[in-house]
């Protein structure tokens, strides 16, 4: 019963958040310099034509009117059409200003739905690698505070945190792909192409996970239930596996919800470096091309994912620890 209440409340909050994010992005896009119509129509197009196209597209209406119109179609599931991308794929530079056959522009939703699974696959891979790695290093560190596993955890996380992701991406690509030829690096042509970018992202994520785990495991080990557990007749392994790790995972889940947003930044850079056709690459291109509807659509989709992930994380955390309030 509370789960249902919780879901309704959080989804309602989520809708508000998404709405605000869209409005913010929408406004920002329209006040920053750079006229998308000029880019679409090309540098040579006459001023009057540009004005006409812009008027036809509604780009000269007050922002609030434009936003209302936009949200109106969004709730009907229509994220609009890209300014620059034709439906058939490759993006156009838009030199042919007299070619304004708008029906051929790609649907934003289609573009996003093509890129999203790629990024989700990358994210899942990243999560798997970083969780397994951080769990091994972090739990060992937390169980032996002050001893060598703790120091190892500390050094690893210090080193990882100081590696810039673009540098690491390039080095790994050179090493594993160019030099050793073990893993493919550029573009996407099968699952193996996810591995290198995922490693780079995992390296970026792990330090915080490791430090959180070391801290939460070692503080759980000093709780009374651990030492009392021994006298109650529970073995050390059982206490750690059934109780300490369970309690220590709560801060980890909460952290994952927050980490997601910083991971987003990493995804953009890593996808760009590896030319990985996910949401990050789509975003960069959309920004470079002033493709307002696409940027807008990506913002809505990512903030929706952000809201969903945080709901899931809170559900998991509260189902582990009943004392947490929804």
């Amino acid at each position, binding site marked *: 019963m509370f789960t249902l209440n919780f879901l309704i409340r959080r989804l309602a909050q989520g809708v508000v958040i998404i709405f605000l994010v869209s409005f913010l992005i929408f406004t920002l896009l329209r006040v920053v310099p750079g006229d998308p119509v000029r880019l679409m129509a090309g540098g040579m197009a006459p001023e009057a034509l540009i004005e006409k196209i812009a008027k036809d597209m509604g780009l000269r209406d007050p922002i609030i009117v434009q936003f209302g119109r936009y949200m109106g179609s969004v709730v009907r599931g229509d994220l609009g059409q890209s300014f620059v991308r034709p439906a058939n794929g490759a993006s156009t530079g838009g030199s042919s200003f007299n070619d304004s056959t708008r029906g051929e522009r790609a649907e934003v939703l289609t573009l996003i739905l093509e890129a999203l699974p790629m990024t989700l696959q990358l994210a899942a891979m990243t999560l798997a690698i970083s969780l397994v790695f951080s769990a091994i290093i972090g739990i060992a560190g937390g169980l032996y505070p002050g001893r060598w596993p703790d120091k190892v955890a500390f050094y690893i996380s210090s080193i990882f945190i100081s590696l810039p992701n673009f540098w690491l991406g390039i080095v790994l690509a050179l090493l594993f792909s160019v030099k050793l030829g073990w893993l493919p690096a550029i573009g996407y042509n099968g699952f193996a192409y996810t591995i290198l970018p995922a490693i780079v992202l995992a390296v970026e994520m792990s330090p915080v996970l490791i430090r959180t785990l070391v801290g939460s495991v070692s503080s759980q080990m000093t709780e009374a*239930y651990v030492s009392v557990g021994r006298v109650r007749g529970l073995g050390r392994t059982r206490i750690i596996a059934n109780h300490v790790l369970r309690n220590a995972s709560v801060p980890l889940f909460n952290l994952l919800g927050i980490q997601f947003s910083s991971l987003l930044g990493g995804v953009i850079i890593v996808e760009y470096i590896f030319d990985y056709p996910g949401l990050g690459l789509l975003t960069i291109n959309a920004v470079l091309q002033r493709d307002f509807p696409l940027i807008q659509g990506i913002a809505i989709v990512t903030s929706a994912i952000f809201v969903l992930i945080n709901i899931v994380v809170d559900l998991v955390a509260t189902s582990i620890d009943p004392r947490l309030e929804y």
Partner: protein
Amino acid sequence: MALLELRNVTVALGRSDTAKVILEDVSLSLAPKEIVGVVGASASGKTVLSRTAVNWLDPPLVRRSGSVLFEGRDIYGMKETEMRGLRQRISYVGANPMGAMDPTLPVGAQIVEKMRAVMPDVSRRQAQERVIELLAAVRIPSASSRFHDYPSQFSGGMMQRALIVDALVTNPAVLVADNVTQPLDVTVAAQVIRLIKELTDQFNTAVLFISSSLPMVREASTRTLVIDRGRIVEEQATEALVARPSHPYTRELVSQTPKIWRGTETLPALPEDREVVLSLRDASQTYRVKKRSGLGGVNLVRAVRNVTFDVRRGDSFAIVGESGCGKSTLMRLLSRLELPSSGQILCEGKDIATLRGRDLLDFRARLQLVLQDPFGSLPPRTSIGRMLEEPLRTHGWRDREKLRARVLKVMGEVGLAAELYNELPLGLSAGQRQRVNVARALVLEPSILIMDETLSALDQAEQFKLLDLFQKLQQEYNLTYIFISHDLAMVRKVCNRVAVMYLGEVFELAGNERLFFDPGHPYTMALLSAMPTLEDKRYKPEDCLLEGEPPSPLSIPTGCSFKSRCPRAMEVCNGVQPVLTVRHEHDFAACHLVKAEIPLIEDSVEGASA
């Protein structure tokens, strides 16, 4: 043959020769089905002794010499796995029930886990059935649904009982109980002791009952050992020990145990027409708590309900009751940390809710709080002198010489040496810390002091010294005290007037002698019967001891809120809420049994104190 035997055990803090010795040459033995008591002051080594007995010494504690034999075998000579197997037969319950289990798993599941860890042959079903059976045996209400509740949903008393189930679930031969009743209210403590005795009978378990309270040990055990600074100084059959203590330390322990009905000095009588300094008129406090279910719904917690009484200048006024009865909420109302949701609190005739500016500052100086925890409440990096100057500075004192002189004077009055002026509070004992707290309240020359469980963390001897100090200060400065306490023995010794609270309501308001010799409310009588004493009780637990715990303040029963536990409940108690009724000129009780002559109506404040 002894079941459990400690032979000349010495335990120290570390291996070096200079390490502090905590237990010195301790020997004791426990026969099957026997309950043996160990009594001693705090820091005498009781906890270390109980841990030694169950092979649970963590560094820096080291067993230097001696052995602990269980059925003749040295438990310190065993392998880890063998010892873990023995945990089925040797159980332990400690003084801190709240931290003892994983907070994220249901209590029942954890007891089942423990049972199956030491008895792998038991199936999950069998284990679950046995746990529910035992939870019911220790009188946890609706055991089969409580089985699925989490530790945070249990009260301290219920958790302690759950841990007793946890200890007994494997049918152990020995149970080591270290100060198990210490965190509990007297009523619950009495239930727990009764339970332990029944269970030894039922399950043939021998118990090592360790406690800092001699009356508690007397209730529980047949033979008692006295421990003083790590040494066993005396051992006798319990009744003989109480009647004829032979070691000087035991004599001291016996003589320091407070007396309730026999041989107490009567407090000097105070004239009835003293000025009223604090007056509660129908004061209530209701908290709104967010519901866990429902969209944004709130529950109303009625923590204090329609409390009316007067405190007169020079009173030592006690507010007593079990934990959760609203004592601390009342303290916050009296000290204006919170304003009542309805009703008024008058200080020297003025409603404290309306005080502003200068008046408010004056009120704050006149009424001071001394809180419970002598360890948490002192800032560790501030010197004692500085700490005591602090309140003076907030009240506008600037002159360094005057500040210093005032602080030193107060330090002298509470018995703190002047040398401590520049010291940090780190090295202070619990008693000294509590004195610093008292001094901090006294520097502003208040006229009213509210003591919220101020002495409950101190041991008997230290409590006595502070109570003497309070009495001296009261005479000197004409102070008014309000003691908030669950310790009736202390109340008997120093308070001239007592309010007994239950579920936010005052059930009885009476003078000291009247309350202890002729209580007017069945609840007061139950509290008196549960008090641990060395005398014969005036009220027999068999007649009036309560079962269970107070109902939740979220759903207060209609009619008399005590009816669910009252041994005397009648038909009328279901529908009609009793009001405070005059019994004798100055004493009141809220029970239908009191033949009412003048019912105390809500707005007649005069009635409550006249």
